[in-house]
């Protein structure tokens, strides 16, 4: 999985490409921890190029959401594919995450 990191004002955007699973979720966790350590409190994780997610990926996103809630931060996930969205639905993640249909919508929602 590739992770591209960009800034939109004070928002950190992590764009994922490929598969978020047991073997790759550690690299997302690392990126999130580094940004949190740098004082970032607003995150968008963009799923436009994400093909696949397993429970290991869900786990990292849930940990991030919990952490950001504690510190009054924000996390928005953008552009989930239909298959990934179904995994969110089954896991009960859809009601507890803020989902946006595009990166621009995510930025507008968080700013």
């Amino acid at each position, binding site marked *: 999985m590739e992770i591209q990191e960009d800034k939109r004002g004070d928002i950190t955007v992590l764009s994922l490409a490929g598969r978020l*699973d*047991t*073997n790759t979720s550690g690299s997302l966790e690392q990126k999130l921890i580094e940004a949190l350590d740098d004082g970032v409190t607003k995150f968008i994780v963009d799923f436009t190029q994400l093909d*696949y997610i*397993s*429970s*290991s990926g*869900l*786990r990292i996103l*849930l*940990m991030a*959401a*919990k952490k950001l*809630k504690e510190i009054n931060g924000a996390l928005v996930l953008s552009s989930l594919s*239909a*298959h990934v969205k179904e*995994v969110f639905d*089954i*896991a*009960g993640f859809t009601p*507890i995450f803020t989902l946006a249909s595009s990166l621009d919508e995510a930025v507008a929602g968080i700013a």
Partner: protein
Amino acid sequence: MPDQLAIEIKNDLAEIEGLFQALDQYGKTYHFSSKLLFDLHLVLDELLTNVIKYGYDDKGDHRIVVCLSSNPEEVVLRVEDDGRPFNPVTREAPDTSQALEQKPIGGLGIHLVKTLMDIVEYARENDKNILVIKKKLAD
């Protein structure tokens, strides 16, 4: 007779990748939809990750045998491992309606498997866990 794919992997997470390549090839041959392939990837990923990470009491080499077969009505997966007894069928489903603060980290893999597939059967035979999982293809 349905064509069968049988693959043996070691208890090493890196081995799952090779299995996925074989699965994709099989899916291509039998014209699986992208959704069916996604679900089969996820199911195998969750089950094998569980076995490899938590299934063994020792650090030695173990073999996991995965068989995949299909006919026009259904896809059948069979996973056999010699880890400690683990029956996912009787595992209680997590409460997926919990709010963010209450939601426990983890425990979702088996729930995904059971929800995405139609039949999950477990047997313990000859000190092995045997899971047979079916996904119906007819509407």
